[in-house]
């Protein structure tokens, strides 16, 4: 089964400027989508709507499980996640940042410890576990953001420009992490990039944002 995601005729305007204009798309479960498009075309706006952070002015963001439409409640929100373009790292240790999503779900200490360690190893931050998270470099910060999100095993995993302003080596590391997630095929992955070559490397499906709509490449 799994979580299926669809948007239907979504409109969103800011200060009277229409950004999303009758945007519709059905995302196939387990696929990896890479979204491209010019600055200001509404890519981040779309992801925020899909992550249920913001309500569209009209139209619907629809999550289904086994054909059943799900209410946009906490239970659903906990099955999806979005790694924000500015990560929003908490002022505490690297480990506690990764543990956060598990802690608020009431998961046991032992399981948190095990899963957080796995996630940190997966992004190559195992040795920085007890470091202050705010002292990480940009590349490490991006990886921490991904670890913090993947540890909760989301079924829809959205990433807003995970490699913006990151050097080639760190970009390769982050792409490797995303490729691994993709190979597991447990989550629908939806990411934004400005790098066409990266889109080719990672995406099953390449999408473009144009005139407030999603256009398949």
């Amino acid at each position, binding site marked *: 089964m799994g979580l299926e995601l669809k948007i239907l005729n979504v409109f969103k305007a800011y200060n009277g400027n229409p950004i999303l204009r009758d945007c519709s798309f059905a995302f196939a479960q387990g696929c990896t989508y890479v979204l491209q498009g010019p600055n200001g075309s509404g890519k981040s706006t779309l992801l925020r709507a899909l*992550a249920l*952070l913001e309500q569209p002015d009209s139209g619907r963001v629809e999550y289904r499980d086994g054909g059943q439409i799900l209410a946009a409640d*906490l239970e659903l*929100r*906990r099955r999806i*996640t*979005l*790694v*924000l373009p*500015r*990560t*929003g*790292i*908490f*002022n505490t240790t690297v480990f506690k940042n990764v543990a*956060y*999503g598990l802690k*608020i*779900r009431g998961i046991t200490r032992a399981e948190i410890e095990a899963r957080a360690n796995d996630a940190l190893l997966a992004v190559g931050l195992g040795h920085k576990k007890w470091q*202050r*998270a*705010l*002292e*990480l*470099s*940009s590349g*490490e*910060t991006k990886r921490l953001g991904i670890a*913090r*999100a993947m540890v*909760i095993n989301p079924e829809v995993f959205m990433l807003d420009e995970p490699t913006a302003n990151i050097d080639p080596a760190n970009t390769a590391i982050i792409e490797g992490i995303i490729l691994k997630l993709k190979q597991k095929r447990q989550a629908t992955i939806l990411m934004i990039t400005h790098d066409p070559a990266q889109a080719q490397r990672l995406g099953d499906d390449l999408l473009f944002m144009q005139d407030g709509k999603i256009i398949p490449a």
Partner: protein
Amino acid sequence: MQSILEGFAAAFRLIVTLNPELWRIILLSLEVSGTALMLATIFGLPVGACLAMRRVPLRGLVISLLNTGMGLPPVAAGLFLYLFLSRSGPLGFMGLLYTPTAMIIAQCLLAFPIVASLSQAAIANVDPVIRQAAITLGATPIQESLAVVKEARYSIMAGVMAGLGRVMAEVGAIIIVGGNIAGYTRVMTTTIALETDKGNFELAIALGIILLTISFSITVGLRFFQRLGRTGTSAN
């Protein structure tokens, strides 16, 4: 000059010999100010948090009032509280005037606006991305607010330290409602005022030294918490 030196020598003798009267006064000061600060934090932090994060009616006005309260002259606070607690006042039946409890209430009134106002500012200053990150990771509305307050914890502690600094140093309010009764409501600042007046400098100087040491520690604590705040690389 000679008498000043003699005063200091006698003061040091009081300190190093752990003079019981000196210690009683110091302990009562810490007890009164500490309790007042604790109460001010218990009430002030939630008020500050609500003002920073919830839609509160007359929010701007309340914040302005709290900011005014930060500069409330202790003597004025003492006077108003006296009028309430005096035998003919509305709360006179409780018999609280000239007790440590009255002093705690007075200092709580002085510390509350500081703690509430500085907490409000600290929480309102938290980067909105923190709240969004908490939501994307599956936080309930309460967990989301807690994440924001937690992010402000060092600035909040700095605010609490500022409140402590104020109540430890004030004399105007507690002298009015406490009455400076020897062995019962006499604390460091009021004793210094009284003993200096009487020309008994030893005890006053000893307490002055201790008070300065405490103020210095509070300042160090304040700086410590300010520094633990959001500093790091610019990566976020």
